[in-house]
């Protein structure tokens, strides 16, 4: 993954993850797997984990601990009303940015 992609993803990955769990609650590994399916093949598992820790600390998700066959219990993340608000704001911001950048793109080239 290029340096530019990494930099751009930094600002948007949180919104992407919120959007992914908005449809269906998931635990860390599932979230990484869903991202991989969508073509984000080089995002590190640990990066997603750190991000999940952050959105939990900010109170955007509810967490349920589910026992797993091996290893420690898995934390299943689901979007709560505060997370929903945050995601809505993310989409508004995204639309604004995407519109403006697209305009620069069509005008400038």
């Amino acid at each position: 993954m290029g340096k530019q992609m990494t930099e751009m993803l930094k600002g948007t990955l949180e919104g992407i993850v919120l959007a992914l769990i908005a449809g269906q609650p998931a635990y860390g590994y599932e979230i990484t797997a869903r991202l991989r399916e969508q073509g984000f093949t080089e995002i590190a598992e640990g990066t997603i984990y750190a991000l999940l820790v952050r959105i939990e600390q900010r109170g955007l998700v509810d967490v349920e601990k589910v026992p797993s066959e091996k290893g420690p219990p898995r934390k299943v993340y689901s979007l709560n009303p505060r997370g929903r608000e945050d995601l809505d704001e993310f989409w508004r911001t995204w639309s604004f940015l995407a519109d403006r950048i697209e305009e620069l793109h069509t005008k400038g080239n």
Partner: protein
Amino acid sequence: MAAKWIETITGSLDDKKQYKQYKARLEALPGKYRTAAQALDRYVIYSGGVVKADVMLKMFDDLATLFEQAAADGTPVSAIVGDDPVEFAETFLANYADGQWRNKEKQRLTDAIGEATADEN
């Protein structure tokens, strides 16, 4: 009473117990996971600047859980930390910023600029 008095000198005994448990969790990880987790442990202690014990213990718990889970899932170490381990460590550390000593300096800077610009608005 005696225990309390001792703890004011030695630090919380409960924190020490939790810290020892965390170290044991890292020791118990299989080979490569242990090496990687211990390397990250060193980095976050030396360069993290986290000085609050409760925040630090939370960070340790999260770090150990990540590696225990990854080992159980068979996630390769390279897929946990990605291409840039420092980048990963910094992303991870950002979650515990409220325990960092630098906060005092950030506050000092904010206050100083606030004072300097007080008559501007």
